[in-house]
């Protein structure tokens, strides 16, 4: 039997044993995980069947057609996209068995405790300290820009375990219990009026050594896996024409001829073309991934989306003229999801400003493209061989 046929047969077995209409959502998701149909490229026993990743779409389509419940991936994006691949690669057997299933079903939400006020683009300079005390590590410090921290059960955390070596060498990667009494989550209100993310204060948080991922001092390498997966996950989806930020403005243009001006028309067409080209670039990347030949285009997708989202949403506010002077709602909220289409143009404009900062600034991503894709030399570094404790702060 081919991989596809095997997966289809297994999917139908799952549906027969757990008919979606009268199975509890979580029960269904747990059964799906146990059947190896959660993420088919994962190992058996951990939600997968060691099948080619590209065949996930076969399973998903079959389940969707049968009306099966999903795991709402947008709500648990950090767990799925960042924590899970890192646990899979660096976790012990025990850690994989403990964390991956509730992560995938969405029973346990994850967040990421990486950035700090003094360590943004230069993440390796982070100062949150973890000190060994017996079987535990005691963690003190402050993290920032933490989405979902107020919902999260667990966090992936990087902290400094050795200040006497150069900054990349003294970092260790942990799984942090967000219910620990030493974890304090404070909302951080952003320019949209909402608070999607948080500041997280860590005061004498005790993490058992059994929740360490990877070796002591190897946290930077472990974190690279997390960050690579964050950027790769953007390229994987197929987007229809006008599927992104260009959709709402095109709709407004068509439905409201009274707003049209020649000047906006030219810019709209220019951006429509760019949006279509970025969509095609993503589709090309997807076709390469299906063949198992990922191209370097992935590095550029986030850059391209950030710029497009900002330019299109900016033009949309302008197109609206008098209405562009208004804003839908400044109420402080704690949204579970970022929803670009459920809000008005002003929200889109403001929220898109974060696209070139979150998950790696566009400036840093341009450096990555220049150095890793084009092979241009890195800037001279003055911090490489200096112990972390002696760095300028």
């Amino acid at each position, binding site marked *: 039997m081919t991989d596809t046929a095997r997966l289809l047969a297994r999917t139908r077995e799952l549906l027969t044993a757990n008919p979606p209409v009268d199975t509890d959502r979580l029960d269904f998701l747990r059964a799906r995980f146990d059947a190896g149909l959660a993420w088919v490229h994962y190992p058996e026993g951990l939600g997968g069947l060691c099948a080619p990743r590209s065949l996930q779409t076969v399973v998903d389509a079959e389940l969707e057609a049968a009306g099966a419940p999903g795991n709402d991936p947008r709500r648990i994006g950090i767990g799925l996209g960042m924590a899970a691949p890192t646990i899979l690669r660096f976790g012990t057997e025990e850690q994989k068995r403990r964390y991956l299933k509730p992560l995938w079903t969405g029973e346990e939400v994850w967040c990421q405790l990486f950035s700090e006020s003094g360590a943004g683009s230069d993440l390796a300079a982070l100062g949150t300290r973890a000190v060994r005390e017996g079987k535990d590590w005691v963690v003190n410090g402050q993290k920032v820009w933490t989405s979902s921290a107020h919902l999260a059960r667990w966090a992936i955390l990087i902290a400094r375990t050795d200040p006497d070596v150069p900054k990349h060498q003294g970092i260790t990667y942990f799984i942090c219990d967000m219910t620990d009494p030493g974890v304090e989550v404070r909302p951080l209100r952003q320019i949209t009026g909402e608070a999607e993310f948080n500041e997280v204060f860590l005061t004498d948080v005790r993490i058992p050594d059994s929740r360490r991922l990877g070796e002591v001092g190897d946290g930077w390498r472990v974190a690279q896996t997390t960050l690579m997966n964050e950027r790769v996950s953007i390229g994987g989806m197929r987007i229809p024409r006008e599927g992104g930020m260009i959709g709402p403005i095109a709709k407004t243009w068509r439905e409201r001829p009274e707003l049209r001006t020649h000047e906006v028309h030219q810019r709209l067409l220019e951006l429509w073309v760019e949006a279509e080209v970025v969509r095609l670039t993503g589709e090309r990347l997807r076709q390469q991934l299906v063949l198992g030949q990922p191209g370097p285009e992935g590095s550029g997708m986030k850059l391209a989306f950030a710029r497009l989202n900002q330019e299109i949403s900016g033009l949309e506010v302008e197109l609206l003229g008098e209405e562009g002077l208004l804003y839908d709602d400044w109420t402080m909220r704690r949204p579970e999801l970022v929803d670009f289409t459920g809000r008005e143009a002003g929200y889109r404009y403001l929220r898109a400003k974060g696209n070139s900062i979150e998950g790696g600034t566009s400036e840093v991503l341009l450096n990555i493209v220049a150095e890793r894709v084009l092979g*241009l030399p890195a800037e001279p570094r003055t911090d490489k061989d200096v112990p972390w404790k002696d760095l300028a702060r």
Partner: protein
Amino acid sequence: MTDLLYSEEEEALRAAVRDLLTDRCDAAGVIARAESDTLHDVSLWKALTDGMGLAGLLVPEELGGQGATHREAAVVLEELGRAVAPVPYLTSAVVATEALLACGTDDLLSRLATATAIGTLAVGLHAAPSAPLKTVRLEGGTLHGKLTGIADATVADVLLVPADDDGLYAVDASAVTVTPQVPLDLTRPLATVTLDGAPGRRLGEAAPAVRRALSAGAGLLASEQLGISDRMLTDTVRYLKERKQFNRPVGGFQALKHRLAQLWLEVAGLRAAARNAADALATGSEDIGVAVAVAQAFAAPVAVRAAEEALQLHGGIGMTWEHPVHLYLKRAKADSIAYGTVGAHRAALAELVDLRSP
């Protein structure tokens, strides 16, 4: 579904064309030819056509062609763009050939496919697929009038001429006066064509044939522009790794790295857009109009910027006649007008995707 990648056969074709061009079409030779009396490289054209059969890619085998598609022709054009090769490939093997295909089978098609003749469409190179057609007068059974900006006319054996009876006529080059113009891009020469009672043979309806020919020309021009852009980026990256100032390679300065990374991103986009247009043309997709307009509206500024960035980042040497960057700048700038400007393609798109002007 649109296939945006290159097949193994397409990569093999690319390698063969690139090998030939590396041997036979170096930059110094192209620069020297640009000041000579024969702007076209006829011997290179022979090698590409007699040797490799590339003139007949779009023509079915039973008519003497190779029975390949626009996808393969696009790969050839990428390589010709990379080398700014002065050969009439786009004009004869794509545009004139498409016009003849639109008119039905004809003996002339086989001659073009086997490169026993070079043909060119007697429509100004600047004309967009949607532009109103400029025609000559049909009077007393012969053709009269003057057409300007006809690409590769000086090397053509036969011209395909639209006349005011709505017909497209095959006219022997020996029956007209071809006067070279001084072109911005010396690697794609232009000429005026004067018809003073020239006999012509009616091939079919001019308007649909010309529209189809120019649409294919515009769509595949994006692949030539991709070749230009990719070459300019590659050459500039290589140069900036070698060139040292302030005791370090200038390619290590962030201000320059960001510009090149940005350009790389645009070239990656152009590759997707050009493949999309070539695939749409190859499969006769319903989406040809949008795919071609998107590719052209995107390609022209990218190719021009790639050449302009190359010139600036090469510094003084980039401004010299002996350095090849000017060949690419001139070709890229001319290409930004050829088969319709960005504005013309955007206007076409506005209709196609229902984003109408105020």
